[in-house]
């Protein structure tokens, strides 16, 4: 592989790596906050073994400081990190003017979104 492509690749990968780290740290922090709240409050904030599974329930739980709402929000953010990775890759390839891989990565993103939509029906 020629030098130019190699250097270009490193810039792309370092950028994605940085954004990934921020994303993972945010997701992990929200999980840790929820977990500490759970230990301190000794209650999940929800009756019995139930937990919130819709985004509106989770958001409502966050404003009322329910531990399980924070934990679920952290998990949801973690699920989003690979999606974030694909999105940032599109931008990174675009910045490096690699048109072929902008297309390839965009196709992956579209298929991924299609899967998300399909999954909800």
């Amino acid at each position, binding site marked *: 592989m020629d030098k130019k492509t190699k250097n270009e690749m490193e810039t792309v990968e370092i950028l994605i790596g940085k954004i990934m780290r921020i994303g993972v740290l945010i997701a992990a922090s929200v999980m840790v906050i929820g977990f500490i709240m759970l230990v301190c409050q000794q209650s999940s904030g929800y009756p019995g073994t139930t937990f919130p599974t819709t985004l509106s329930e989770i958001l409502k739980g966050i404003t009322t400081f329910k531990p399980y709402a924070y934990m679920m929000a952290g998990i949801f953010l973690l699920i989003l990190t690979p999606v974030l990775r694909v999105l940032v890759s599109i931008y990174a390839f675009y910045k490096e003017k690699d048109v072929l*891989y902008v297309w390839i990565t965009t196709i992956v993103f579209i298929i991924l979104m299609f899967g998300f939509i399909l999954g909800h029906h």
Partner: protein
Amino acid sequence: MITSTLLMLAVGLFAGIMGAILGIGGGMIITPIITLALGLDIKYAIGASIIAVIATSSGSTIAFLKDDVLNLRVAMFLEIATTIGAIVGAVLTGIFHPAILYFLFGSLLIFSSWNMYRKLRSGKEILKRAKPDKWAQKFNLNSSYFDKNLNKQIDYQVENIPGGLSIMFGAGIASGMLGIGSGAFKVMAMDNAMKMPLKPSSATSNLMMGVTAAASASVYFFNGSIKPGIAVPLALGILVGAAIGSRIMQHLPSRVIRMIFIPILLYLGLQMIFKAFGVTI
């Protein structure tokens, strides 16, 4: 609750280290612990496994990107086949008999375990091929990585792209339909079919499996299969484990990684073949 939390943290730490080194999801470690040790429904084990795959992937990818071990172009190129396969698999659920697939994929894993054994026996890892592949050049897939064990930059070439794409498509179907083999098939496609060196194969598999899992994860999240009390300590343990594992992996000799791989592939393959005949081990 304290016991199950500590157990999940410890399991996560172990699964994260192993998963990052091998490029596999760790569902085979997590599922029996959740169903047998904690006595929870299989549905929660599947939900936890999906979260485990994403945590392993995101946790290890940070180090692999920073140290430039993985091959981003190969990942994105193959991801097209995997994600389409995953959707086809999800649609096919209920139409196609899973036993046939279990048998087919189980046999593939055993074959790939045998291939790994042969590579181990032949000694030296072959990295450079005589004839450059047309597809690999067209899609700019050849690359290099710095091996921290050998302490040198290793250039490698990729070949048999159609073969790799076919296995990836199959891997997608398997994970979409059966929820299995998130990483094992990916490593197999890159290492066995495309002749990529083992470390970039495993690192690239780590990146890819998170993307594939994310598509189905939202389904499990909203249908209540992901228990926060289980998934959070597991995910936190894995994130730490994967960060450690992704650093250990780069210093390990490829031979050692292969030696860990062989029995695991064999076990996974046998597990699937038994399942095809209705026996769960």
